């Protein structure tokens, strides 16, 4: 059994046919972890005992209940959870030392849904502490490495989840995407990564970074797998006032439908500044594939793109500084000087932008610019159906390359964070390799366009099959 050769679709079929058992599958995950995680640092907490126990229970269910695959669509599927996801009785650290001993007394809504659907939690993954980062290097623990090249970052902030799926520790890596944090690791680790429409998936129990930006997404090897998981996680939650009372889509059912006549827009502002030439060429090649599949391509403009980062770095730290106020050491965790440098930086910046005398010039102004950015996308979607651009302006960069310059680090999100400002959907798909390193292509769609994005991404994936390219743990 080789997890890197398996997808959710494969595993479900093979479990049905009893080619292997849930227990064997879980054992394989932990075998891969024991082999590789010392080098890669994808995990903060492992759930070996719990996972094996669950696997045993599921094997019984599969034996006795023919309909179990309908009742529990993810039965036996090994998943990893970003350590921002609250898990009852399993340590949850947010990648930070300040709550390194926190054992939540409740489960996040999404965790409950995944477990009820039969998924097996392998462990909690490493991340930039509190979600603050794009590389995984802001973890308070050891930074995660990219399985394709161990001298490089896997992307962040859901760095551990991306790396874990990429090296075969699980089939699904959950994450949160506030400005890039699912799409970027997906792009750097050759995975499919979804940032769903804000409000499509419940945030209840997910440790908050920026409340009006956090989107609860996940990474998988293939589009079908990704769509399958969204069918479970999406939906209205009475515990989260910002979720929508809109029906969950039939995401896997639309896969295979053709996309003839699909209008694709290329934001001209994404194809200029700082875009690595090699990445640009790779994306252009992928666009030719889209045309072959029947889509038409046209240049459009998102005129306020230049201001998106600035608006982002006012609004997000403002909300961050507020959401981190509860860590006072009284009911859980340690005292506030334990916060890492990036957390302190964002608390300071956010306190400043909300403070008396500065609120109008910063927070209020940025909130108005946010409206303009939202309108940019709305206008664009009147002309085209989806937008395409590179997931990242560069190839996965080297560890340590941007760590000392926070502003430089912030700018790696330039194609990704406008999607969070607008609250719309973004999907990163494997788009090829350059110099042995993965390139990701981002598809952006309006609110609740996940079905359309999956449709387009699926055909592209079937045509190119980049997901089959395995990591080689280079420079380890």
């Amino acid at each position, binding site marked *: 059994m080789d997890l890197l050769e398996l997808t959710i679709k494969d595993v479900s079929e093979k479990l049905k046919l009893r080619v292997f058992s849930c227990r064997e599958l879980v054992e394989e995950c932990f075998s891969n972890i024991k082999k590789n995680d010392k080098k890669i640092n994808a995990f903060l907490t492992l759930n070996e005992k719990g996972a094996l126990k669950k696997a045993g229970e599921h094997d019984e269910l599969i034996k006795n209940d023919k309909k179990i695959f309908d009742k529990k669509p993810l039965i036996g599927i090994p998943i990893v959870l970003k350590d921002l996801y609250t898990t009852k009785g399993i340590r949850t650290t947010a990648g930070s030392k300040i709550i390194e001993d926190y054992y939540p007394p409740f489960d996040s809504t999404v965790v409950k849904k995944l477990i009820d659907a039969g998924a097996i939690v392998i462990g909690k993954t490493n991340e930039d502490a509190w979600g603050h980062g794009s590389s995984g290097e802001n973890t308070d623990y050891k930074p995660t490495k990219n399985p394709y090249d161990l001298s490089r970052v896997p992307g962040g902030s859901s760095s551990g989840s991306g790396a874990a799926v990429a090296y075969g520790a699980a089939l699904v890596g959950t994450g949160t995407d506030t400005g890039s944090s699912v799409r970027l690791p997906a792009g750097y680790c050759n995975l499919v990564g979804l940032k769903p429409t804000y409000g499509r998936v419940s945030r*209840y129990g997910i440790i908050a970074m920026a409340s009006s930006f956090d989107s609860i997404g996940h990474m998988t090897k293939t589009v079908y797998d990704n769509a399958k998981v969204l069918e479970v996680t999406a939906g209205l939650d009475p515990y989260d006032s910002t979720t929508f009372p809109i029906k969950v889509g039939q995401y896997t059912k639309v896969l295979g439908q053709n996309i003839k006549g699909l209008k694709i827009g290329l934001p001209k502002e994404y194809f200029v500044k700082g875009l690595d030439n090699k990445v640009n060429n790779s994306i252009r090649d992928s666009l030719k594939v889209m045309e072959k599949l029947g889509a038409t391509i046209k240049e459009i403009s998102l005129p306020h793109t230049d201001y998106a980062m600035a608006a982002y770095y006012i609004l997000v730290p403002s909300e961050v500084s507020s959401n981190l106020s509860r860590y006072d050491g*009284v009911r859980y965790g340690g005292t506030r000087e334990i916060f890492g440098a990036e957390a302190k930086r964002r608390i300071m910046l956010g306190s400043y932008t909300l403070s008396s005398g500065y609120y109008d010039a910063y927070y209020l102004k940025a909130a108005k610019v946010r409206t303009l950015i939202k309108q940019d996308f709305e206008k664009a979607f009147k002309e085209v159906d989806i937008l395409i651009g590179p997931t990242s302006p560069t190839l996965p960069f080297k560890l340590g390359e941007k760590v000392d310059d926070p502003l430089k680090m912030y700018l790696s999100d330039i194609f990704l964070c406008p999607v969070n400002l607008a609250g719309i959907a973004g999907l990163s798909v494997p788009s090829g390799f350059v110099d042995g390193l993965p390139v990701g292509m981002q598809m952006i769609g309006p609110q609740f366009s996940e079905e359309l994005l999956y449709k387009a991404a699926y055909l592209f994936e079937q045509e190119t099959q980049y997901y089959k390219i395995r990591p080689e743990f280079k420079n380890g």
Partner: protein
Amino acid sequence: MDKKYYPIIGMEIHVQLKTKSGMFCGCKNDPNAKEPNINTCPVCLGLPGALPVANKKAIEWTVKLGLALGCKINTLSKFDRKHYFYPDLPKGYQISQYDLPFCYDGKVETSFGPVGITRVHLEEDTGKLIHQKVNGRDVSLIDFNRSGTPLVEIVTEPEIYSSLQAKEYAKKLRQVIRYLDISDCDMEKGGMRLEANISLLRHPQGVQTQTGHPKGGQLPNYKVELKNINSFRYLERGIEYEIERQTEILEEGKTPVQETRGFNAEKNITFIQRIKEGAADYRYFPDPDLPPIKFSEKWMGEIRSSEPELIDLVFTRWENDYKVDRKITELLFETAGESKKIDEIFINLTKQKLPVDKFVNAVANKKLAVNLFGKNTGEIIDIFKKSLAVDEITDDQLKTFIDKVLSSNQKAVSDFKSGKTNVMNFLAGMVMREAKKKVEFGRLSKLIIQLIKS
């Protein structure tokens, strides 16, 4: 003596709503539960990842209170985060309302003049701090049962000009709130918390009467906050003390320090609690976890139609229709539901041509011992009728019983003769007991006196 200074007072009153569940979560709303920390959940305990969902009833009750105070309603409203650090504030911010409170611009009438209501808004209560010595060390212990209880804040314009007016205002507010039955306003248990901002304005010509107030004029350049007052009497005394204390400072040519003070009931003085370093920077911003509230015409219609008649109008109506004094009828009920029952009783009394004012007095003086809200109207009126009824008995028959009573109560007779006229009540009662009949007092006492004299 002419006073040189006008007290300028504004009040902030916090009231706990008695909803079944919390403001933003489904925990039991029992701020005074016997055991600490038994009604908490991830939301009101501020655990990582928890999210608030607003209680519709708490919002509706806040609007109802605003309407009863003559306020305008913001049809588009929202919750904001108010940031400050304190151990009893689990999220490090309180979910409150900043620039779009549910209600604003109302008024409460007092016998000293109207008091403007600036705003009525809704927020969540904090946990409770208990100060104790543990192992010889001073510590603060925290109970979060109260965290998340819906709290309404009512703020007045600085239009209160005396301690008596402040007390009357606070009492009236409590009456309105209890009438709406949205809070018990139990001041000793923290269900209603009084705060007064007090300053003195120098008046160029001296103040002659209490009602010659400087409304709309210039405000003093400082104010002292009097907090944690849990009785109307302490409110009055605290304000009085402050007026004296501030007068002394101003007479010395100095300005009182802007600070927070508490009231010490034993010593009857106010004392410093905290010096205010200018306004705190709460870094308010709209709470991203809570979508804004839009009061549709339909929803406002529902709220308005469930709004009871304004309490002042009820009293006025009764005064006009039944000639019964507000000071007495006030004692008969608290809630709107109860006032409706009384309306029903009054209407029925009138139909049967029975005296409403007599009824009201009898109940108020407890001469008629009947639970107005425990029995049905018919029964209550019957009991009242009985109390008015007198039994059939002739003077001669009565005289027989009077004779008997007088002869076995010689001391009472001599007491009466020596001037103790209230002994008559005793004698009359004895006669009625002997006769086993109810007799009109006037008539009976006349007969008894006749026989005593003879």
